[in-house]
C-alpha cells in the first residue's frame, strides 16, 4: 500500500494543533468526570441518581423542556413559514430577531423574564395565574432560550421546496389546508422534528435563564442542572458528577438519535446523488 499523496500543505501541523487543543480543552476535562465517577461504587452512584429530590428534578426538567419544545415547534414553524413565503415590511428585522435568544446572555434573559412575569410585572399582572416562581416560569425561560432551533432548521428546507409542488397540489383540486397537511408538512417534517429535538436537548441543560424564574423549591421547581450546582456548592463533587453524568448521557444520546435520523432522511432525499 502506498502512502496517500497529499497535495495541500499543512496536514501534520493542523493535525497536531487540533489534537493538542482537543485533548487539553475537551478530552482531559471530560476524562476527569469519568475519573470522578470511577471512584464511586455502583451502589452509591445508584443511590445518588435515584435520590427522590433528584428524581423530582428529572421529571420537572423533562416535562418543562417538552412543553417549551412543543411551543417552539409551532412558533418556529409559523415564523419560518412567514419568513420564507411572504414579503412584508419589517421582514428583515423579524429574521434578525429570531437569533436574539442565542445572542442574549442567559442570565439577562433570566432576570428579564422573571421581572416581566412576576405577579406585579408588565406581563404577569395581566395573567390570572402564577408564572414566575412556578414551573410555568421554567417553561417560559426554556422556550425563550431555544427559539432559534426550529426556525433555523425549517427555514432552509422550506426554501428548497419547489413552487411547482404546491401549485400542482392546488391545480389538482386540493384545498390549502389539505395541501399543507399532505404535501408540505411531510416534506418539512424531518427538519421540524430535528429542530424540535435540538431545542429539547438545549432545554434539558438550561441553567442561566431558568434559575431566576423557577423559585428553585426542592421537589417542585428545581431543574437538574441546578441540582448539579447545589451539590457543587456543598463541595460534594462525587454527587455533582453523578447527577451531571445523567444529564450528559441523556443529551449525548438525544444528539446521537437526532444525527442518525437526519442522516437517514438525507439519504432518502438525495438517494443516488453524491452530496
Amino acid at each position, binding site marked *: 500500500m502506498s502512502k496517500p499523496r497529499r497535495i495541500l500543505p499543512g496536514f501534520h501541523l493542523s493535525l497536531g494543533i487540533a489534537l493538542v487543543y482537543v485533548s487539553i480543552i*475537551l478530552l482531559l476535562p471530560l476524562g476527569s468526570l469519568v475519573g470522578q465517577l470511577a471512584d464511586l461504587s455502583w451502589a452509591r452512584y445508584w443511590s445518588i441518581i435515584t435520590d427522590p429530590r433528584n428524581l423530582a428534578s428529572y421529571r420537572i426538567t423533562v416535562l418543562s423542556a417538552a412543553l417549551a419544545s412543543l411551543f417552539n415547534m409551532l412558533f418556529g414553524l409559523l415564523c419560518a413559514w412567514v419568513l420564507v413565503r411572504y414579503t412584508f415590511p419589517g421582514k428583515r428585522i423579524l429574521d434578525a430577531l429570531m437569533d436574539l435568544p442565542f445572542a442574549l446572555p*442567559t442570565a*439577562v434573559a433570566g432576570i428579564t423574564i422573571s421581572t416581566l412575569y412576576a405577579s406585579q410585572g408588565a406581563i404577569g399582572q395581566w395573567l390570572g395565574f402564577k408564572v414566575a416562581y412556578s414551573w410555568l416560569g421554567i417553561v417560559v425561560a426554556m422556550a425563550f432560550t431555544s427559539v432559534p432551533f426550529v426556525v433555523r432548521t425549517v427555514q432552509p428546507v422550506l426554501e428548497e421546496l419547489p413552487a411547482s409542488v404546491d401549485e400542482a397540489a392546488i391545480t389538482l383540486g386540493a384545498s390549502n389546508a389539505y395541501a399543507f397537511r399532505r404535501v408540505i408538512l411531510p416534506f418539512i417534517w424531518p427538519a421540524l422534528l430535528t429542530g424540535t429535538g435540538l431545542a429539547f436537548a438545549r432545554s434539558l441543560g438550561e441553567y442561566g435563564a431558568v434559575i431566576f424564574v423557577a423559585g428553585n423549591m426542592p421537589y417542585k421547581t428545581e431543574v437538574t442542572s441546578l441540582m*448539579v450546582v447545589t451539590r457543587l456548592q456543598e463541595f460534594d463533587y462525587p454527587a455533582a458528577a453523578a447527577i451531571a453524568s445523567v444529564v*450528559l448521557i441523556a443529551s*449525548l444520546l438525544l444528539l446521537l438519535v437526532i444525527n442518525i435520523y437526519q442522516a437517514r432522511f438525507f439519504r432518502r432525499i438525495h438517494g443516488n446523488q453524491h452530496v
Partner: protein
Amino acid sequence: MQRVGDSLPVKWTLIVLALVLTALVLVVPLIEIVRQALAGGVGELLDNLTNTYTLSAIWLTLLIAVITVPLNVLFGTVLAWLVTRFRFLGRRLLQTLIDIPFAVSPVIAGLVYLLLYGRNGWLGQWLAGYDIQLMFAWPGMVLVTLFVTSPFVARELIPLMQAQGRQEEEAAVSLGARGAQLFYRITLPNIRSGLIYGAILTNARAMGEFGAVSVVSGMINGVTISLPLQVEQLYQDYNTVGSFVSALLLAMLAVLTLVIKGLLEWLAERRQQRHSKVAEDV
C-alpha cells in the same frame, strides 16, 4: 400561479400572528431591560455604570473575550482546514468530538474543569505544588469559556469550505504557492464572511457565558465577577436597577451582534445577485 397560503386573509393572519408573538416573546423583554435600567433615572444608570465593581466586571469580560476569541478563531480555522482538505483515520470522530460542547450543559462544562483543575483534581494538585491556582480565578473562567465557545468558528467554516472544495487551492499549489501565501491569497478571501460570523458568535457567547463561568468563578467581588455574573449578584441583592444596567450593556452587545450578522448576510446576498447577473450577461 397560486401557492399554498397565498390567499390574502391567510397570509396576513399568519404574518400578524408571527409579528405579535415575536413582539411578546422577544421584543417585550428587550424593552423591559431598557425600562428597568432607566427606572431610577439617567443619573442612577450612570452611577451604576461607572462604579468600580461594574468597571472591573467590564474589564474582566473584555479580558475573557480578548483571549478566547483569537484562540478559538485560530483553532476553528485549523480544524476546518484539517477536516475539509484531508481525509484521514478518525476524521469523523474529530468532527463529532468538537460538537460536544454544544450538547453539554454549561454547568457540566464548569464542573468538569473544576474536577480537573480544582484542589482535588489531577492537574489541580500538581499545579498547586507550583502555587498556581486556576479555579476560582480568572484563568479558570477563560478556560471554561474556551471550552464552551470552541465549536462556533469550526461549525461556520466546515460546511462553507466543504461546499467550496479544494480545487482552487490545489490549482494554487500546482502553480507554486506556498503555505502562508496559499492561505492569505486563496483560502482567506473565500471564507472571510464565515470567519467573521464565527468570530462574532464566539465573542457574543464568550462575553455572555453564565452557567459555566459561575461554577468556576468563586464570586470574588471586583476580581472574578464578569458582567453576566454581576447581573446575577446584583439581582440576588435586590439591586434591580444595578442588575439591569449591566444587563443593558450585554443586551446592547447582543443587538450589535445581530446587526453585524444581518449586515454580513445582506452583503453576501448582494454579492451573489451580482455574480448571477454577471453569469446571465455572459
